[in-house]
């Protein structure tokens, strides 16, 4: 079997944990299949950044410079999903990779379908687990908003797999990677590949986003008014956490949509999710039930959130949140 190709996403020239998770998971799958991994990355990250991928098991990194790639497209763009997908797919086709693994970030989700068509592969997205049996990979993925898990097999020889961020461990296995530069011409990129071009990226507030946070403190209608979200923010601040929200409070205009967790908001899998004054409606659970630890604070002991909680306190958020903030402050001094 051929080597597995991992596409490592660099955001603003640095690799985030999701790229390392993809390398690590790819390495495990490759070992089980009796093969190895190669990594491709399209970025202007400096050389010392590229070698950090080695810490997670990449021994070979193919590097395509983003600015060189962009020089083939219209002037003044930040990047082009379609051109990046074309470069990765052409590289995979030319070198016979059968499996391509990508982290399912907003970037990964955008390029994966294009790559799957260009490489004539099956696609299995948002995977949270895998098993390897007799040289075949089966993927586990949540569906119906996390209400059930499906095990998916693919019948075509090739597959593009995206991994739900934060689910797989980035395990250190020190290697020093060999970095090989590739050029846009080598992967046959022309102006026609720049079908969609990102001309600007607007950062909403500089705040940590729920989709990337390791700890999330979320508030719901139990907070009663927008002002009392200060209590949620204070706890988040001492934990270095992102703040999240239920749809009820987003719809009420108390919190921005970017904070909404759930079926019509974001899907998150942090290490710790603290739900404050949130009832735990099925659509909210859809977005957070794969969190590693869930803490619920709710004055109603029968609130459905307690059914998925690992820890919880039945009580008033207005008393418990300030007390938690103080207690955690004590740990930090």
């Amino acid at each position, binding site marked *: 079997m051929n080597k597995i190709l991992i596409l490592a996403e660099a955001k603003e020239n640095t690799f985030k944990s999701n790229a390392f998770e993809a390398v690590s998971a790819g390495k495990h799958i490759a070992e089980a299949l009796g093969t190895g991994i190669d990594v491709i990355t399209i970025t202007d990250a400096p050389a010392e950044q590229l070698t950090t991928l080695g810490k997670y098991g990449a021994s070979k990194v193919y590097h395509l410079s983003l600015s060189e790639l962009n020089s083939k497209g219209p002037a003044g763009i930040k990047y082009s999903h379609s051109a990046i997908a074309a470069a990765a797919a052409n590289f995979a086709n030319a070198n016979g990779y059968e499996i391509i693994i990508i982290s399912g970030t907003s970037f990964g*989700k955008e390029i994966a379908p294009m790559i799957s068509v260009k490489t004539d592969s099956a696609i299995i997205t948002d995977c949270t687990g895998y098993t390897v049996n007799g040289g075949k990979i089966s993927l586990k993925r949540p569906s119906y908003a996390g209400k059930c898990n499906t095990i*998916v*097999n693919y019948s075509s020889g090739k597959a593009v797999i995206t991994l739900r961020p934060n689910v797989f461990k980035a395990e250190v296995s020190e290697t020093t990677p060999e970095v090989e530069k590739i050029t846009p011409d080598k992967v046959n990129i022309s102006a026609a590949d720049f079908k969609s071009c990102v001309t600007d990226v607007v950062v909403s507030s500089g705040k940590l986003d729920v989709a990337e946070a390791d700890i999330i403190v979320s508030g719901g209608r139990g907070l009663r008014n927008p002002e009392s979200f200060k209590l949620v923010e204070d706890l988040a601040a001492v934990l270095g956490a992102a703040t999240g929200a239920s749809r009820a409070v987003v719809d009420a205009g108390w919190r921005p*949509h970017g904070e909404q967790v759930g079926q019509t908001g974001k899907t998150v899998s942090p290490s710790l999710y603290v739900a404050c004054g949130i009832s735990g409606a099925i659509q909210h659970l859809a977005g957070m039930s794969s969190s*590693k*630890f869930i803490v619920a604070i709710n004055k109603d002991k029968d609130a459905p959130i*307690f059914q998925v909680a690992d*820890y919880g*306190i039945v009580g008033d958020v207005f008393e418990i949140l300030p007390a938690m903030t103080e207690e955690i402050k004590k740990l930090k001094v």
Partner: protein
Amino acid sequence: MKIVVCVSLVPDSTTKVKVGSSGKSIDETGVTYIINPYDEFAVEEAVQLKEKNGGEVTAISVGTERSKEAIKKAFQMGADKGILVKSDTADNDSFTVAKNLASAIKELSPDIIFFGKQSIDYDGSVVTGMTAELLGLPFVNVVTKLELNGNEATAEREIEGGKEIVKTSLPAVFGAQKGLNNPRYPNLKSIMASKSKPIEEKPFLNERKTEVAEMSLPESKGQGKIFTDGVSNVPELVRLLREEAKVI
């Protein structure tokens, strides 16, 4: 303008999912089906474009006879014509759906095509991008704002911690996210008018590349440690988070 919108019929989001006897799909008894909620944003955007620029909106679905319900909902919101690519079963994989949508769309050569950003049954978030790629068209998914200017489109796309401004030429494919617009509630007049709108049926081709081997309900977490003495439990909770869960 020739506008296409792709709509999927899915179980209502409040459905209690049970695994069916095959172990590979859900038990359909008692399930209520609705148009995929994100596809409502797609239909609304399509209809608003028609109202502004004139033209025609065609709603396409791949699925069983039942999927006509999604097309009818699009009719009530203002779509003009429907196409059902009719399959025997509802559990087609994403590639098959994309292939069938692409061939139906190709015949229409539309100026613009709308999808939802994700279906709430399989939750794949892939049909949109695959269909676009099969058609050789540009695509932007998770779109919260769209502006057209002649042959150019500028879309805002939601990403972690912000948004991207993405430019494409038309024809192009867009996947609608909440925030793009406010889907209308059909009024009596539009419901009456929808009854005479035609749905054409097209043959289906099975092209699947993936199989569901097994479906199961997530293991329940077991009972968590829930304290009932309010604020006095805070020190113990914090201790457990630190020493037992080791997350803070």
